[in-house]
């Protein structure tokens, strides 16, 4: 079982190579459509460095793929709260991304105090907190206090939304 997942893991790392190669092609294609003849000032035009970076990306993609195929693999990062003995918990990650997207969609519509509370509560829920009274209360308090500190205290623009005038 472990050898299968180990091999899958090794193969998924080829995705990094693929990503680098795609990035490289993207950078080169983008560089090729920059008109260099008339815009160029001095011997190095706006496309030169992108071409170099694009080529470097492709070369690194190939070298990394070779390294992975020879059995090399990157060591996943450790951390205080990280336990690598379990497989990745994708459900939590997807729920977090959903909470994050909710904030993006809501912030200009209903204002930061509400969208921020949704973000915090959603994230806490995704991470396994199930205090159905305490979690939302903390989320709202944090969001409103942050709004007041930033918008009122520090003069940094966070949208109030429909709560404009209430807070």
């Amino acid at each position: 079982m472990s050898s299968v997942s180990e091999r899958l893991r090794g193969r998924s790392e080829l995705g990094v190579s693929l990503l680098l190669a795609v990035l490289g092609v993207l950078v080169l294609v983008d560089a090729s459509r920059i008109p260099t003849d008339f815009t160029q000032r001095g011997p190095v035009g706006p496309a030169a460095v992108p071409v170099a970076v694009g080529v470097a990306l492709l070369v690194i993609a190939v070298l990394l793929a070779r390294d992975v195929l020879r059995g090399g693999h990157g060591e996943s990062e450790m951390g205080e709260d990280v336990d690598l003995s379990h497989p990745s918990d994708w459900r939590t990650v997807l729920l977090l991304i959903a909470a994050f997207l909710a904030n993006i969609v809501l912030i200009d519509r209903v204002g930061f105090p509400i969208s921020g509370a949704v973000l915090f509560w959603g994230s806490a829920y995704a991470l396994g907190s199930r205090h159905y009274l305490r979690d939302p209360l903390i989320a709202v308090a944090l969001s409103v206090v942050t709004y007041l500190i930033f918008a009122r205290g520090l003069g940094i623009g966070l949208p109030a939304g429909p709560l404009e005038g209430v807070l």
Partner: protein
Amino acid sequence: MEALSDLLNGFATALTPTNLAWAALGVILGTAVGVLPGIGPAMTVALLLPVTYGLEPTAAFIMFAGIFYGGMFGGSTTSILLNTPGESSSVITAIEGNLMARNGRASQALATAAIGSFVAGLIGTMLLVLLAPAIVDLAVGISAADYFAIMMLAFIAVTAVLGSSRIRGFASLAIGLTLGLIGIDLATGQQRLTFGIPQLADGIDIVVVAVGIFAIGEALWVAAHLRRRPADIIPTGRAFMSREDYRRSWRPWLRGTALGFPFGALPAGGAEIPTFLSYVTEKRLSRHKDEFGRGAIEGVAGPEASNNASAAGTLVPMLTLGLPTNATAAVMLAAFTGYGIQPGPLLFEREGDLVWALIASLFIGNTLLLVLNLPLAPLWARLLRTPRPYLYAGILFFASVGAYAVNASTIDLVILLVIGLLGFAMRRYGLPVVPAIIAVILGPRAEQQLRRALQLSNGEISGLWSSPLAKLIYLIIAVVLLWPLISRFVLRGRHPLAEAAAGAGVPLEAEPPPADDDRVPEERP
């Protein structure tokens, strides 16, 4: 001593009651955030950056200095009280520090870390005062080609020296360079990698990149592997130590400082090597060798001083050359740019008052840290008990606030998420994040210097290495890149030396994993 009178003027600017209050607030916020597990100094600085946006530059810098030192100290508190590897610079502190804490000497471990940090910060900042004007004098005269060479050295140093896999370091560097290309080319007005999205024309804000890679990437990564069982935290009282502890600590503090500062000041990459060297040195010199492995105070005092001295050292190239050599310095450089201030030799001429006020605030922040943190240690220890769902939800929350506050634009939040996912993938596949951050910030500057240099040499590529300084730097780059080959062929014949060095724990050869590729081509501009 012109520097000293400049410094006194700096103190005159910085030492107002309001500014002192900002510094104290910065230290408290910096320590509180830095103590939280999973948050290293670079992320602390990135997350707290928005708080300083609304302040005028002097007050912002003063608060910032407090955040910087607070974040550093917070990280070591975490590693002493929680024995799990956190940020790489405090891994060594954690070894003996946690053992001391387990033996009921948490207070002493925290005290020697705090006082050692203070001593190292004091000496390091003093050295910054003495060195900076001299380096600025030298730097004013160096050419665009030399600058380009120095930047290449910084790229290679952070990529090839750190981490276990060079090819993955270079992959990270290339990703960073690509992100740095996005936006309008300043020299010609051409759009690069903007894909017709108007918000990308100004480039991606560096704060968004840093917060995305550090905060979002880390939160998602931890979320995917959250420890099910809570880590055990050792309770602590007020930090204090006895006369005997002082007697055993002061030499390690000074030696650690002497090791740490040069590593930080030269672009030699991070605090890992000096903290490790300090640990090995103290272990060898200690009269209590038997205590090593059971919680020796020297093993905390030395590495912790070394860590802080190295952080102070990174400020030398950051302020005088605009050259960040670690993640924290990179985020600070981004912050300065955000205030409309461009670090580099001209900064000392144009905004001398501001720079010296900042340096004075480093002294103030360092002192406040000691005054506040010795009595507050038990409070910080309690922060370690923050329920993890709230902790990581809070990181996502404040990261969003910070990214949104930069331009009040939701596009930045989308970019933040994309870069956060990138940061997640990099952690998953062992791509170090520091080269990417350095490349995003330094890449565009390096391109500017390259084009300027080639303009001056009429497109003659040899103009890049015509000066002796540039030649020397390219030679160093070649040695760093070819080091694995050199050590394999040259040192093979001299086993005794290599073994003696290895026996002393000197990392003569950064052990590459077996299948790693050593023959990475130098990136040619």
